[in-house]
């Protein structure tokens, strides 16, 4: 019982769960195609990293390590800004190409990728108009 409680101390299971969250996010990042889902996966990976940091900071006796906590706090604000920028990029991409996905690679698709991208990625009328002004 005593041994089990030691193995389940917050300083150990939270970092472990953080590592699992990171791995889970990585798995989602590789497998999903929609860019918004990929951004969610990146955020979950980030949360895993925060959990590892804070879990380790809470190890041992006494107050948790304030430097790790301050770093995490900084990280959360950076994460939300990066997410916002990434989402703005996704919207822009959708506006120009009509796609919010990573285009699948050639072996997946009958049409070679270049055919799609040449037409779709050409500056749209809207893009032109905006940059003429």
């Amino acid at each position, binding site marked *: 019982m005593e041994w089990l409680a030691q193995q389940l101390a917050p300083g150990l299971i939270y970092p472990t769960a953080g590592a699992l969250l990171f791995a889970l996010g990585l798995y989602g990042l590789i497998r999903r195609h929609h860019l*918004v889902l990929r951004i969610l996966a990146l955020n979950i990976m980030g949360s895993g990293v925060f959990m590892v940091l804070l879990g380790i900071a*809470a190890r041992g006796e006494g107050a948790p390590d*304030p430097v790790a906590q301050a770093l995490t706090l900084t990280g959360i604000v950076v994460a939300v800004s990066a997410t*916002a920028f990434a989402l703005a990029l996704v*919207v822009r991409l959708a506006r120009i190409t*009509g796609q919010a996905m990573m285009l699948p690679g050639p072996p997946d698709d009958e049409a070679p990728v270049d055919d799609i991208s040449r037409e779709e990625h050409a500056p749209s009328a809207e893009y032109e108009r905006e940059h003429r002004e």
Partner: protein
Amino acid sequence: MSNLLLVIFDLVLLAGLLGVAWRCLASTDLFRAVVLFITFGLLLALAWVRLEAPDIALAEAAIGAGITGALLLVTLERLRSIAVERRRGRPDQPPDPAGADALLHALHDPPPPRRTFVPALSFALVVGGLMVTALWHQPDAVGLEPVVDEHMGVSGVDHPITAVLLNFRAYDTFLELAIVLIALLGAWSLGRYDRLPARPAPGPILPGTLRLLVPVAIVTGVYILWAGSHAPGGAFQAGAILGAAGILLVLARPRDLPMAPSTPLRLGLTAGVGLFLAIGIVGLFIGPGLLGYPPEWAYPLIIVIEIAATLSIALTLVALFIAGRPAGDDH
């Protein structure tokens, strides 16, 4: 007994977190994924409380769950409206039903192809396994807590996290404010302000609630800022609360709300970085070095920087939600 209860709490919470994250990343419907992600953020805030990190719990609840959730939802709404617009066509553009269908379809991501299953799973397992192994074999770190404790006297504040953020590691915080600003510049460089797609429901209820909530958010935000010098709180959390209030206002868009003019808006957006840098450079010339303060001046300087940073963070979060340069820019 209480120990056992806590262990059960930990296990249930972590299982819930992993389960929600899994369902979020596995869902084919994006709206569902976003809602699950918001739930994930709220559970995460609970985990931070359990790890004795109330500062981060505050920030996570306000930013991770609240503001990121709002950003994601408005993005889905934007993607939907782009699809509708494509289908209808615009004066200078013929309708494009194929593209519109692709995009509408894209709000439901199909299940991933089978062939990526094994490589993705094995890669994730290897990385996760390595991390867990490393974490289990790491010695109990002493951490920097004693060092911070020793120097609290010269930091100018009584809360270790604020001391680290605004004094001991002011570089990090300064650069972080710069990154937040750069993210906004990036979003602005993508195009002009484009109208929010979702119109709020008309009627008296929302304005009535806003009249109650906005003053409360202002007082609470400033209180959190004030509390940061001796208790959990500070510029980031305060900025997040005020930013959330700003996003609510933008969403409700009361007709007669004056829009912030461009120049003050830009000054406000850069106030945090600018003031931080100015004070930091003064420090360079009078002795304590770049981004250092003389101990007797530390408290007032930290408060002034924090006020500016709060303003900048709040405004930047609102601007990132709106995305795109302000409309008033061009005329």
